[in-house]
């Protein structure tokens, strides 16, 4: 039981929240469940594709190659690649979390991954649309500041959390 709770703590908490809310407002919870199913169906292809990309990277690309391209030692080149990846990718960030974690396990820098997540806020494909709605000055400054802050947050997050990943590459176990 203890092991089950440790393993499925998130799922258990969400189930408890849903059960409590269903007692008080079954209509809204039903709406929520419908939303969840629709979302799941809409994103299913992306989730499966990202899972494949994670599996593919873990088998087909060597840790050395990943380390050279986006590893800690890749320097500004790696950060830039991470930022560009985050800027151009489409879909919610959290769907890509498993891929990011696999990349970290394979030698990607924590700062590069944190920068990628930060740069996700800049969506190149939405810029023309945003300019029409909010004005070009706002959109330009907004994207520039977000790019700079994504890079800065990459360094800070790496500084504080790198110790959690130090066991990797020293016989430590990756996330799965």
């Amino acid at each position: 039981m203890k092991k089950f709770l440790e393993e499925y703590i998130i799922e258990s908490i969400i189930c408890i929240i849903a059960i409590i809310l269903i007692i008080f407002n079954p209509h809204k919870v039903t709406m929520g469940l419908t939303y969840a199913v629709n979302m799941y169906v809409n994103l299913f292809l992306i989730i499966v594709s990202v899972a494949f990309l994670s599996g593919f990277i873990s088998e087909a690309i060597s840790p050395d190659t990943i380390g050279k391209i986006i590893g800690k030692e890749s320097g500004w080149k790696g950060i830039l690649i991470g930022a560009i990846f985050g800027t151009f990718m489409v879909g919610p960030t959290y769907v890509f979390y498993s891929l990011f974690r696999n990349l970290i396990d394979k030698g990607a820098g924590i700062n590069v991954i944190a920068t990628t997540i930060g740069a996700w806020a800049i969506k190149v494909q939405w810029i023309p649309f945003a300019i029409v709605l909010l004005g070009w000055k706002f959109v330009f400054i907004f994207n520039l500041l977000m790019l700079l802050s994504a890079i800065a947050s990459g360094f800070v997050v790496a500084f504080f959390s790198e110790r959690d990943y130090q066991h990797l590459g020293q016989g430590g176990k990756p996330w799965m």
Partner: protein
Amino acid sequence: MDVGSIYLIVAFSLLLLSAFRDIERTKKALKATGKVALTVLPVLFMIFILMGIIEAFVSKETIVQWLGSGGSVLSIVIGELVRCVALIQPAAIFPFAGFLHKNGANYGAVFGFVMTGILIGIATLPLEVKLFGKRFTIVRNILTFIIVLLIGIIFKVVRL
């Protein structure tokens, strides 16, 4: 063509390419894919349920009410907090941000609202903790909140 199909085509092309080059490695890659999918799919489903419940309980009208006439630094913080909880489809973020601005929300609050929504999400925190650990998640989210607040203040002070 939708985004999911594009990702699937990319994944399928890589699969074919990989199978053509090394069938054994491809089998291993597919096995790893199954493992990732089995780990992530159930968690994501629960996360979507949480998102759905939040979506049902926090309406757009409530958000407009909270942010519509915001003019202080506090409005930026409110914008961030609301957006941490409220879930609006990515495609609807900018139109909704434009709508908020027209309804009186300042650029700082609009910025806080848009950015926090993309970068922080209460509903997706459990997944982030599960995959990256507590330290990574806490530092990244708190830092993002602070950065967005500071940039929001810049937008409030500098008239565009």
